């Protein structure tokens, strides 16, 4: 066993560390390992040394994956604006019973005063969090977002915990319309979205600059406006004849209910995590683009569907205006993500192999 063999063994194990870390610290750590091996007459890593390398190397790799503070801040703002859009839309179209009745939609029994469900509490807490953010009260925003998260999870949990007490459990076909002791709650897709957005918003420092406050408010209002317009447009063109329509019904809201749901959450996360974490000048565009077009920014669903639309040469069902926007923005999302990944990959690309790498070690 030569010295080079011992060196090569350690260097192989150190591949667990990220290349950038090895370039900066690899040689020094390798030297320490070799000193320790010499002292005990060892020919390679002991079990404990190997375990240490694995643990610390993987921790470093995970640290590289974790979003930076600016990225978390951006994601937090996007989530705050997105949650505002969803809360406003849900309140106006799903909760306010006089408005629902005026549009000729079905008014469900079990409402909470003039509001359709207990979800009004969730939206009120969320909007209070937004106001606190606009007022620069970061600690209050954090507490309110935690409250919103607990409310969303708590209301969702009633489906399982209080199902035996739910008077609507047997009579209402959609299971996510269960309620608490006679009151209804919003459906799961709203609660999951709001819970996810609360968690995402809590990742940031929640202390917004004046410009960020304006952008967050604008993003929420524009997003809410687009959502309302989308739902009303879809209903107006296709669902007016359906007297059973309610905003909270997944099939009734057509594809618009995909808005800030399961598909868009990863998009928000990915865009925020990968794209321009340090280029604040892009912030207004990213914020407005992402929030305003959330109803359509669901590539996992809309990319295949847009292919289908083009393949079928615009059938009657698919040739409504949002479908074109849907297709456009979905493909834009894919392009944006591809660019962001490419940019990130180029930035993190190793410029040269460190001498702690096995290749260099073997040639030493």
């Amino acid at each position: 066993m030569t010295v080079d063999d011992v060196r090569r063994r350690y260097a192989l194990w150190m591949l667990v560390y990220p290349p950038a870390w090895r370039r900066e610290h690899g040689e020094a750590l390798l030297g320490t390992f070799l000193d320790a091996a010499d002292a005990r007459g060892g020919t390679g890593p002991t079990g404990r040394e190997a375990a240490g390398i694995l643990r610390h190397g993987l921790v470093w790799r995970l640290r590289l994956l974790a979003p930076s503070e600016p990225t978390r801040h951006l994601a937090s703002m996007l989530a705050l604006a997105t949650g505002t859009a969803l809360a406003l839309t849900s309140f106006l179209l799903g909760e306010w019973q006089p408005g629902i009745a005026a549009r000729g939609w079905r008014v469900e029994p079990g409402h909470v005063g003039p509001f359709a469900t207990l979800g009004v509490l969730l939206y009120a807490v969320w909007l209070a969090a937004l106001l606190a953010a606009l007022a620069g009260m970061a600690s209050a925003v954090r507490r309110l977002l935690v409250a919103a998260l607990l409310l969303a999870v708590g209301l969702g949990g009633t489906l399982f915990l209080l199902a035996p007490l739910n008077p609507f459990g047997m009579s209402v076909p959609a299971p996510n319309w269960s309620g608490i002791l006679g009151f209804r709650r919003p459906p799961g897709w709203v609660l999951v979205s709001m819970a996810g957005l609360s968690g995402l918003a809590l990742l940031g420092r929640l202390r917004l600059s004046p410009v960020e406050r304006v952008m967050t408010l604008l993003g929420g209002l524009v997003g809410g406006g687009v959502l309302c317009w989308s739902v009303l447009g879809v209903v107006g063109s296709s669902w007016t004849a359906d007297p059973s329509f309610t905003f909270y019904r997944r099939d009734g809201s057509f594809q618009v209910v995909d808005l800030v749901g399961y598909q868009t959450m990863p998009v928000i996360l990915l865009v925020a995590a990968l794209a321009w974490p340090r280029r604040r000048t892009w912030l207004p565009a990213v914020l407005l683009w992402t929030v305003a077009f959330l109803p359509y920014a669901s590539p996992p669903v809309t990319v295949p569907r847009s292919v289908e639309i083009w393949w079928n040469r615009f059938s009657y069902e698919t040739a409504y205006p949002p479908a074109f926007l849907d297709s456009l923005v979905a493909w834009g999302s894919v392009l944006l993500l591809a660019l962001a990944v490419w940019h990130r990959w180029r930035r993190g690309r190793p410029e040269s192999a460190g001498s702690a790498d096995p290749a260099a070690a073997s040639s030493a």
Partner: protein
Amino acid sequence: MTMREPTVYLLAALAEGRQHGYALMGAVEQLSGGTVVLRPATLYGALERLTGEGLVRVAGEEAVDGRLRRYFELTDDGAAALAEQQQRLAHAAEAAARGLRARGFGGRSGAAGLGATRLGGAWA
């Protein structure tokens, strides 16, 4: 700020002067009476963290027998943090000694009266 035991021993070892990785491992083991044994990967993880916190800094490198030795030393902030820990532990040791005396254990007083204060002696 409360530090973990290995960190305290690491800073205590560096308080005696700049040292490279392998020497630090030995110094920590010796100072702790063999109760704290740092492996190289753990040592470098801790040194990187302490460097990031401004308590430790790199104090040069040299190649010995084809191996890179990187030296580390305590910063002024690191010395202040170590002094704070020393006072905290000495206070805790004093309180423990008083309690034990009240129960009739041991006749020695202060930090020197407890085995755990080996650290205090090392820092002195």
